[in-house]
């Protein structure tokens, strides 16, 4: 990342950023709060200085303490990927504005994040489960969802997975959950 681009990011998005602009390999990383998603992504998309017209990826992440929504953007003004992390969503009721008004193709990716993490994207007009059946009750990619828990209700109940993390079944989820500072 060149200095000019970093300064431009800091100047235009300054108050919205919740952390420093980071760089590792070919990835530039910025952090924002859920409230800033609409403004920051619209600026990055529309501003002729940025021109991030291509949404490469939209991913949900459960860090064990908070939820995140991670956007990867591409533009011809910088040789790096831009990673925008919408950080600090509560695990009880994660809510974030939808970006379907900029990229209609984000609709299914947001549906996937909703299906897997239970993140509500406000403004997505088709937010229903996409992979799991409609009567499904849990969010499989959350860190407090264990594979053996699911197996207990499934036709293959009782089969222990080889890759299972060995946590006592009686342990409360708060103590056994895998966490990361991300």
């Amino acid at each position: 990342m060149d200095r000019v681009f970093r300064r431009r990011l800091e100047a235009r998005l300054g108050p919205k950023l919740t952390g420093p602009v980071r760089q590792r390999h070919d990835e530039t990383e910025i952090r924002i709060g859920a409230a800033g998603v609409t403004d920051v992504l619209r600026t990055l998309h529309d501003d002729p200085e940025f021109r991030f017209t291509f949404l490469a990826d939209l991913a949900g992440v459960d860090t064990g303490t908070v939820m995140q929504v991670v956007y990867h953007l591409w533009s011809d003004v910088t040789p790096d990927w831009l990673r925008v992390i919408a950080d600090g969503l509560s695990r009880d009721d994660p809510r974030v504005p939808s970006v379907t008004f900029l990229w209609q193709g984000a609709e299914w990716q947001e549906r996937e994040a909703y299906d897997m993490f239970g993140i509500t994207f406000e403004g997505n007009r088709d937010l229903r489960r996409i992979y799991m059946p409609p009567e499904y009750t849990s969010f499989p990619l959350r860190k407090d969802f264990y594979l053996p828990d699911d197996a207990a209700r499934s036709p293959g109940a009782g089969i222990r997975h080889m890759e299972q993390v060995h946590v006592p079944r009686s342990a409360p989820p708060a103590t056994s959950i895998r966490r990361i500072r991300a």
Partner: protein
Amino acid sequence: MTATSSRPSADDPRITLDQELGIFEPVPPYPPRTEREAEFYTLGDGQMFINMGPQHPSTHGVLRLVLKLEGEQVVDLDPVVGYLHRGVEKLCENADYHHTISQVDPLEYISALFNEWAPVMAYEKLLDVEVPRRAEYIRVLSAELNRIASHALFMGWMALDLGGLTPILWSFIERDEIVEMLGALTGQRMLFNYFRIGGVNGDLNHDFMSRLGDWMTRATDQIEANLTLLNTNEIFVRRMRGLGTIDGQTALQMCWTGPNLRATGLPFDIRRAHPFSVYQELDFDIPTRIEGDCLARYLLRLDEIKQSLRIIDQCLHRMPDGPIMAKLPRLIRPRPGRAYAAVESPRGQYAAYAISDGTDQPFRLRIHDPSFIHLQSVGQLVQGQLIADTMAVMASLDPVMGGVDK
């Protein structure tokens, strides 16, 4: 399928399993949950619903399309996916870094080398490991062969979905030769498990090289022969031209990538837009077409085969000597961090976002699949077309359901 417990749904407490969920009924037996669902499942005058799939010869896997029809015209369409969902991302979180390579293999099973490439690249970024140049060249060589095999199969499928049986028999000749060749190199015909973190699993061997040399002398002629089979077929061309048209800006807004996007005139290719591996040293063109219809998407893939042949030729001439694996311990524990890596697969941008927490298992591995993105715009493309054209549009987007459903 029937269920008997009375557990309420997490989505909507109004849905319980008391209701016999007729999963294959076109209209769901519960009230609509979203704006779009309410709009779609309201019938206008003279309209009807019909299910295409989940088992249908032209859905390229297990996919259900709920078609809203007016006579024989498609008014709207709702794709229902998830029949092949295996939870690969969750399995990867519970597997060793090396094991995840074989977990992601069966996603887009037509071009499995690209499935391995993106996560492996992301792990290499996490580990700050430099891949030996010979390994990079072997990766490019084998991946481009895989791309040709995938596009050859696309050509056959495309014609098969339109009712022509001959091309798939022809294209399988070519695909089978490449697949056997890759089998000689990797030990597997389809799910290779060949790329390793820091290199590849085996060096080029005599069996592979002799098969490749043999095939390369005939490849151009064989491809030209395949081209004349369909490109001069008037029925095929007239059926495909102007069907499922999309313009570049809409395609970009729909997050399209790969040949489908380039068929609208935008020369966006990850190999050039964000170069990875040794593509920067190689000389090849990015073919584009401006029409953005089914025919353009079909012809563009044929152009790409020729470019892949050029790349393979250069790889063989420039193949450096040296090791094929970087020096790494057996048990790897990357420092906590995040990495994103994308490759240009035959269907578009195939990407992986890996998070490490310092243990020997990835904390999160997100797989971005191009088929998933392309499939969601089928509805827009077929509006106002005939039912039979749905298959043509579907085939021209070249989705692989193994990748869509993860």
